[in-house]
């Protein structure tokens, strides 16, 4: 009897260990299996770091990259190096139970090496603004902060819809967004900024380029007579904006109207929670007329 009862129980006892206690599918569709919900996460992606802080799950974050510069508290976390070549030693030393990496910016080798070291990797591959909201709920589920994640996603979604409502009926100015001045690099098809420009009620003159971030012809950009030119600042904000390069073209509608603006690339190029701040600022630059009254889109007070 006893042996029979044991024989019946045995599979039940063994099953959880064999299948893993915590099984999820990452954003690329790969299954990720952990023994338990992750308590020690290393983020190799600055936007993921921002999102983890935004949903209040930062206690589970034990390591970040050198480029994880926001919020300020992220700089206090132990660092594992850059995105392209993080230090595996530093990573292992942090004893992570999960590493979050991106398909755009991290290397495949890093992922392979981590898996060889039996460190599970959760891959993200956001391509559109909607993917940021998806990522928020995924990170909420991973860290057990579902409530805060749902709240954040809902509030971001509401703010996006508010921008859309304001600019929907307005004429769409032609916008040239400059990612890099020399050589000229612009957002093309599939770039996050291209989508943000469209959401903000603008018509990106370079959205037809086949590559997401092509090196672009200056004369093609000029010939499309942009009404607004937005120069992205990079990193510390000391990037080569090169306003003078554009101010020379006095016959351009944007220059004539004095609509040569700068924008913070960290808000607009990262799939983080601040992407909506970036969207609101873009909308204000492109459609100042829609934001003249006292509105609910102060652009301040949001994280």
């Amino acid at each position: 009897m006893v042996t029979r009862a044991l024989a019946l129980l045995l599979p039940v006892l063994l099953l959880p260990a064999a299948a893993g206690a915590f099984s999820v599918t990452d954003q690329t569709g790969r299954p990720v299996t952990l023994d338990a919900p992750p308590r020690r996460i290393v983020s190799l992606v600055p936007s993921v770091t921002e999102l983890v802080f935004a949903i209040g799950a930062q206690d589970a974050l034990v390591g970040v990259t050198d480029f994880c510069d926001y919020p300020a508290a992220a700089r206090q976390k132990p660092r594992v190096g850059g995105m392209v070549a993080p230090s595996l030693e530093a990573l292992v030393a942090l004893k992570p139970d999960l590493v979050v990496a991106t398909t755009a910016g991290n290397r495949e080798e890093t992922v392979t090496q981590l898996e060889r070291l039996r460190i599970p990797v959760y891959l993200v591959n956001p391509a559109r603004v909607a993917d940021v909201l998806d990522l928020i709920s995924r990170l909420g589920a991973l860290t057990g902060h579902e409530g805060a994640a749902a709240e954040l996603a809902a509030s971001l979604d509401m703010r996006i819809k508010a921008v859309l409502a304001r600019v929907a009926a307005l004429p769409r100015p032609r916008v040239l967004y400059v990612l890099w001045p020399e050589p000229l690099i612009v957002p093309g098809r599939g770039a996050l900024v291209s989508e943000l420009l469209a959401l903000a009620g603008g018509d990106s003159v370079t959205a037809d380029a086949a590559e997401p971030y092509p090196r672009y012809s200056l004369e093609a950009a000029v010939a499309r007579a942009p009404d607004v030119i937005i120069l992205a600042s990079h990193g510390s904000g000391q990037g080569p904006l090169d306003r003078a390069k554009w101010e020379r073209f006095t016959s351009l509608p944007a220059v004539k109207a004095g609509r040569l603006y700068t924008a913070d690339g960290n808000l607009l190029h990262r799939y983080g929670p601040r992407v909506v701040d970036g969207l609101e600022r873009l909308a204000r630059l492109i459609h100042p007329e829609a934001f003249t009254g006292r509105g609910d889109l102060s652009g301040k007070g949001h994280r």
Partner: protein
Amino acid sequence: MSPRSRLTVLLTLLALAAGAVALGALFLGSAAVSARAVIAVLAGRGGGTGVADVVVLSLRLPRILAALLAGGALAVAGVGFQALTRNPLAEPSVLGVSSGAAFGVITAQVFGLRAGVLEALGLTAFAFCGALVAGIAVYVIASRAGGLPVHTLVLAGVIVGIFFSSAITVLISVVDFDRLGGVIHWLLGNLAPIPPAALAVFAAVAGLGFWLVLGQSRQLNLLALGEEGALQLGVDAERVKRRIFAGAALLTAVVVAFAGPIGFVGLIVPHALRMTLGPDNRVLVPAALLAGGVFLLAADTLARNLVAPAELSVGVITSLCGAPFFIYLLRARAARLGP
């Protein structure tokens, strides 16, 4: 025909070719400007403010001039380095000067250091500093008690070049990608419409370098006999080498400052000319100035138009077109010299 009138005919033909390619390039581009509109602008009937005017006069014309200048400068520097080192592999980047200049430019970008007074020349100063450091380093490493042995010079150049290339790689890996995103493209050559004042500086500095090399072209011919032979014919070999070194380094630095490091032009054009015109440096130096310009301009026109409205890096085109052309020339010569 006397050698002198032969040279005149040759240079006239090359100048005509340069003019023809330049004229063609004025009509080609990713902006939809009709041939008629281009002619109207060139005839001064464009009105001065339309898109056609901006595209033709402010974008295409200065870029064409920059390509002619940069190509000519690189080819002359190539002739100089090849004659100086008596090494067919010599080209402007062999002395490490272009890597040094590139390092200077990238350092300026990393730290956001852009001289404000003369916007367009901000980076140039850094390029010159980088080129100067690299050039002097090569010179100091290679020079022996009053001499500058050729093999040591080439080796020193290669080593200094590797050092600066690695330093650039370090900067790119350490600095936030956001801040150096465009640098990888710049490293493959970047001809841009340079404002007139900066173009004048470009031309003046390149002119000085050209003058230095051209002035030594007769002595370079004698140097080809070997340094002892040249010495017997009354050539101050060290003085010639110093001048060629300075001139070619200057040419390389100014090109990197204004157009990024562009490869292959300084290797291909001098060789192609030497194979067709013979080894006389008095002919080669002025011919290289024109032919280098034509080659780089043609390459840049392709780079601007092949994937329009996107653009390729001009260095990709010079390498892609240059290598097969070079092989053709090698084989053609082998066939001529063959049994």
